[in-house]
């Protein structure tokens, strides 16, 4: 193949770190969630790249990626339900303003 494997991996690492930055720097719960999604996408790029380059005969990487999709969808569903619930209760989803639980 024309493209060396580490290009993809560096791309994934970049995406992962961008996602991590989003997670760490956002105040909005939904913003954090978006960062998490970016991180999961980076993981998937990694998995598919390894599958393609290291052992394309066994589809382990693809299967793993499919499970990541599944879990990501489930996580988002629960997470957004929680966001809605907290918004209804507290009228905010800014993480710093969600502060009933501090002594």
């Amino acid at each position: 193949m024309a493209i060396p494997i580490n290009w993809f991996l560096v791309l994934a690492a970049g995406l992962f770190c961008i996602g991590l930055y989003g997670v760490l720097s956002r105040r909005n719960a939904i913003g954090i969630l978006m960062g998490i999604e970016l991180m999961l996408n980076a993981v998937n790029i990694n998995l598919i790249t390894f599958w393609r380059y290291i052992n394309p005969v066994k589809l382990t990487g693809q299967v793993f990626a499919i499970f990541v999709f599944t879990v990501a969808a489930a996580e988002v569903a629960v997470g957004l339900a929680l966001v809605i619930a907290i918004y209804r209760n507290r009228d905010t989803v800014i993480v710093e303003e969600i502060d009933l639980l501090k002594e």
Partner: protein
Amino acid sequence: MHIFLFLLPQLILFLSLVLVFGIDLVGSKEKKWLPYLALTGTTISLAVSIYLFGWVEITAESVLGGMIAIDSFSLYFQIFAAVIASIIILLSIEYMALRSPYQGEYYSLILLACFSISLLSVSADLVMVFISFELLSISSYILTGFLRNDPKSSEAAIKYFLYGSIASAMMLYGMSLLYGATASTNLIQIAQGLSGIDPGLRWVIYPALVLLMVGFGFKTVTVPFHQWSPDAYEGAPTPVTAFLAVGSIGAGFAVLIRVMLTALPDFQVNWAALIAGLSIMSMTLGNLVAISQKNIKRMLAYSGIAHAGYILIGLVSWDLWYPGMVFDGVSGVLIYLLVYLAANLGAFAVVIGFEHKLGSNQISDYAGLIQRSPLMAGTMVVFLFSLIGIPGTGGFVGKLMIFGAALRKEYYFLAIIAIINSVVAGFYYLNVIRYMFFQPLDEPQRDRIQLPKTLSAVIILTCVFTLLMGLFAQPFIQFVQASLGLITS
């Protein structure tokens, strides 16, 4: 006998969950007996797993495409899960009936969460580890936010959720690196792939280890991945807190031990150093912060962090176990988990009883509890002493095994930090005892507290077990050592 028989306890747990969920769907009447149905399921599961444990000597075997490892280690956690499920159900009956109309959903989620504990312990493939990990996480998030009209519950859940999702994303990245380095996700094959690994490729394993530890550290509540726990513990419905404090941590250790020992034995030097660092931070921070807590659920959360730190010492000082070995790290971990289960669930039972009757979780409100309920105060003392590690209670045996293992592997600094922390821990546990026994009631004669029968049963049961494990530890240690089937072979 057929190897799949050993999955029977899990299957029973799962079937009872389907049954509870299904029956709840049919008809619209409130079904008060639903928790008892769930309890029956967990009890049968427990009985079956104990029966299976005593039956034959199990050799490790990977089945179902290498996804599942059947060994005595997994049976240990099936027993663990069934016990937790039963106790949590008993703790919930009175408490949740008052607070939520969704009984069927609640009990099926509890069963699901406990099912995923045993699932995590049998996972022999990263895919399986990941999916069971998420099953546990997601059911825990939902359970934490179960009281959706209570802002604290929602808040606890969203914090838990955010931290959990980040942790699992990072863990996944680590898993993907492991897969890339060995071209496999099967734990045994990973170990084989790593044993003759190209030295250049070792550099990939280090970040993978760290990232994996983020995920496991989140589940086992170790510093610095602990931030969610005090908030989640405080906001969650208290039976769920009890589950998080014991079940979730136990599951974390199950998967941590499984992955580290099966897949990464060649990197023990590296992960032991990493985990030792985490352990020191957890013990120290957990104990120091616990001192200033005013809410008993928060206090128990921080103490849980500290206990996770102690338990990690056992893993750090892992060695191949052989019959006749006295102090072994992993059997220390397993016995400590049992001890912690009994003592902590007992303590939570008291907390639930108190909250149920008086609506408060403030430690200062426990003043004079001995006069209002000698049962609660008396047993709470036993639980707290067990958590400190006073002989005569199970906690002592746990600490003895862990410290013994650490000393045997000559991790003196870990052992010394651990004992310093045990003393610090004494301070805040004694604080509770102080309120219960020494502080007079602010109003001279208040009513005595009459506990629900289910709670009394749990309290007495866990108290008896805490004392039994302290005074007659032999069968428990034997059980734990027998559980090290695959892990150490």
